[in-house]
């Protein structure tokens, strides 16, 4: 009983700390506006709305990326598709070298402005780390272990889910973690295609030369990235628990 409480408390410590810092920063900047312009831009409901939109963009695009890249990565390790792996990984690799802002611009011209384009671009940008880690994670499983499983009469599907996937999970989770953390940063660019998020605060502050507005958006985005990293790290620890 007390140990579970303790566990919960220690688990919540980091998120709480991050939330407190975020709240303090926001409260400080909102209640101490340097002038009327800042006062108009920095209001609690507005800041909250930017934050919520940001989180929404990140979660939706990341979930979509996990749901597509993990199965795709697994598929690339299967017999009939293995020959495709180098080609696909290379294409996605090249995609990753294109600056994220260019991707946004590119798809804006195709899909127009708005949330849909932002989610699509973020999804595309998160694919690579997850796809690559899923592929290398499963490829990296000791072939002797797989052969032992096959040799004992485990059908291929079961070998995948009982042996290969659990053994690759650590690497796959690392890919997801990278993707989501990058995603939190990239999502600030959504402002350029009118999809909102904390980027709005950053850009508004910059264009109005009001540093506190930019700082509010920037600090909240940074805290969000740390929180995401921590959270996925915890999921990882639980999934891989002995």
């Amino acid at each position, binding site marked *: 009983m007390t140990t579970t409480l303790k566990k919960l408390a220690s688990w919540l410590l980091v998120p709480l700390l991050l939330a407190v810092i975020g709240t303090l920063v926001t409260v400080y900047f909102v209640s101490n506006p340097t002038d009327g312009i800042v006062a108009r831009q920095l209001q609690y409901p507005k800041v909250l709305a930017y934050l919520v939109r940001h989180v929404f963009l990140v979660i939706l695009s990341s979930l979509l990326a996990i749901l597509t890249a993990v199965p795709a990565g697994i598929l690339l390790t299967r017999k009939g598709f293995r020959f495709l792996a180098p080609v696909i990984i290379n294409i996605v690799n090249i995609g990753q070298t294109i600056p994220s802002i260019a991707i946004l611009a590119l798809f804006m011209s195709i899909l127009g402005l708005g949330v849909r384009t932002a989610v699509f671009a973020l999804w595309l940008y998160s694919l690579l780390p997850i796809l690559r880690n899923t592929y290398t994670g499963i490829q990296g499983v000791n072939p002797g*272990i797989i*052969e032992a499983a096959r*040799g*004992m009469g*485990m059908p291929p599907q079961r070998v995948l889910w009982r042996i290969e996937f659990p053994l690759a999970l650590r690497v796959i989770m690392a890919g997801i973690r990278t993707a989501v953390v990058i995603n939190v940063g990239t999502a600030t660019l959504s402002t350029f295609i009118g999809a909102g998020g904390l980027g709005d605060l950053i850009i508004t502050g910059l264009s109005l030369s009001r540093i506190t507005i930019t700082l509010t958006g920037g600090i909240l985005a940074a805290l969000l990235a740390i929180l995401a990293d921590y959270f996925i790290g915890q999921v990882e620890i639980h999934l891989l628990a002995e």
Partner: protein
Amino acid sequence: MIKLEHVTKVYKKSEGPAVADLNLHIGKGEVCVLVGPSGCGKTTTMKMINRLIEPTSGTIFVDGQNIMDVNPIELRRNIGYVIQEIGLFPHMTIAENIATVPLEKKWPRDKIRARVDELLQLVGLDPNIYRQRKPRDLSGGQRQRVGVARAMAADPPVLLMDEPFGALDPINRGKLQNEFLRIQKKIQKTIVFVTHDIDEAIKMGTKIAIMRQGKLVQYDTPENILNAPASNFVINLIGGNRTIKQLNLIRVGEMMKEAPPVVELSAPTVKARELLAARGKDLLFAVEKDGRLAGYLSPQNAREEGQVADVMQEIPNSITPDATLNDALSEMLAFGKGFVCVVDEGGKPVGLVTLGTLMKAVGGNDNNS
């Protein structure tokens, strides 16, 4: 039980065949050891039996059935498979590892649990300690024991073992070999055993199949191979001293002499003197209260006054009846005495092997006993 007829395997992109026109009949309950230098096709031959590799031509029968007519998944579930150390699933407990095939066969949970415990006991691991451990918590020898237990989980009539003890140090390897032979005596499986170690082959095999470059060069009992090697290749493979190698074929239990009289540790040495005189022996075993061997006494030791415990000499190591005479010889050399004590699994003395025993076994003069 297993029949290979004109089996050939040519790998893609390789010049010669890995296995060439191989014919092999393995009887029920036999241990057939495939032996030969690295790359001669042992593993390939073995993997064709459970269809991990499909032969290019030829036919294989297991229990009278052409294996190409059997679903490979079904086939493999009825053939135990042990490979070198790497084969255990690192993310599963020992119990889960052993339960692999029973789980695939959808046995009820209770039956699986009971079977896991039974097997752990069979291979000499306490279920209460090891059930929930992970493979990385085990020593090499223990992992190999688990590997064997896992292969036997669903009681398959056939076992395939690819260098199962290859990664172990010589002492542990010897121990596991002996244990495995003891188990095999009980379970009487048909076994295909791959090794590149001719001594292991001589020790483990009812029949030895010597391979060279994908071909079978001699297939016979260890005795016949030692006595009548078919070619220079076989002679070279056997190497060393063939007489000494024959010691590998004989179990201590078959040749050992009766154990000397025993005396308890707490007894006075006068009792030891009486025993020595009465039986006309020159050796006594000192035992604990529960009968376990503790040491030995020579007549000189017994001459001193006091308790047996004070004057006896320690025995650093003893062997079990299922060890080979070759093991006995090694122990004697290590121990530096002309004898080695034989104890049962509980550590109680059951016999004695002397140099004379060894001489008799290899047909030399027996003037030592």
